[in-house]
């Protein structure tokens, strides 16, 4: 966990339906000091409103991966992390 005054630059990746809904495939962005977990990141992104609020609303099925591993809501998010957001998977 970083200290309470530091922002972190993270790489966000959006896949499948979420990429289309947000109209962007990825972004490199500074998140505020309070955003230290997957759950906090979700809430922060949802506050953008519009498609973000809609797709990331509580109860919507969104999966997160941090550095290519599936991540639970309490998983930490830190500087340099690649955080991917995507719908439940449908391969096979």
């Amino acid at each position: 966990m970083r200290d309470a005054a530091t922002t972190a630059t993270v790489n966000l990746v959006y896949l499948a339906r979420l990429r289309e809904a947000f109209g962007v495939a990825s972004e490199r962005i500074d998140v505020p000091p309070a955003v230290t977990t997957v759950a906090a990141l979700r809430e922060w992104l949802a506050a953008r409103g519009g498609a973000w609020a809609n797709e990331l609303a509580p109860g919507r099925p969104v999966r997160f991966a941090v550095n290519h591993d599936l991540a639970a809501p309490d998983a930490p998010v830190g500087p340099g992390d690649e955080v991917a957001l995507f719908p439940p998977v449908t391969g096979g």
Partner: protein
Amino acid sequence: MPIRIQTEDFDVARELAALRAGKLSVGAVVAFIGTVRDINEDSRIATMTLEHYPGMTEKALAAIVDAAKARWDIVDAVVIHRIGALAPADQIVLVGVAGAHRGEAFAACEFIIDYLKTRAPFWKKEDTSAGARWVEARATDDEAAARWRSPREPAA
């Protein structure tokens, strides 16, 4: 333990022959082949596009095969998953497992495809008679994967 993600088709016979080539302890080879249906949820499917998350997909599939190897006494496994545009009847995925005996090979093969369907980052988008749509995850797939969970293992 070959794991491949590719746009091109695969030859099941050749892949299964390669899986057991030179491994004289193998007495059973089990294969699952997933193919594109022409009808899904009452809409006729013209084409389907499969997307994945490069980097994570390979890692997730390797972890699933490793888990199968830790749980069952199998000799080797192969997973091939196609991406890009596919049409009805096309092959999508091959899971092949070689083991000494059929029981462990059957179980490991079913485990790998059940976990692939719920944990590996692939998504299907269908072009149907009712328009284009992303395929929704099925609760039955989660239930199929949950059968393999030990009481101590948390949900995905």
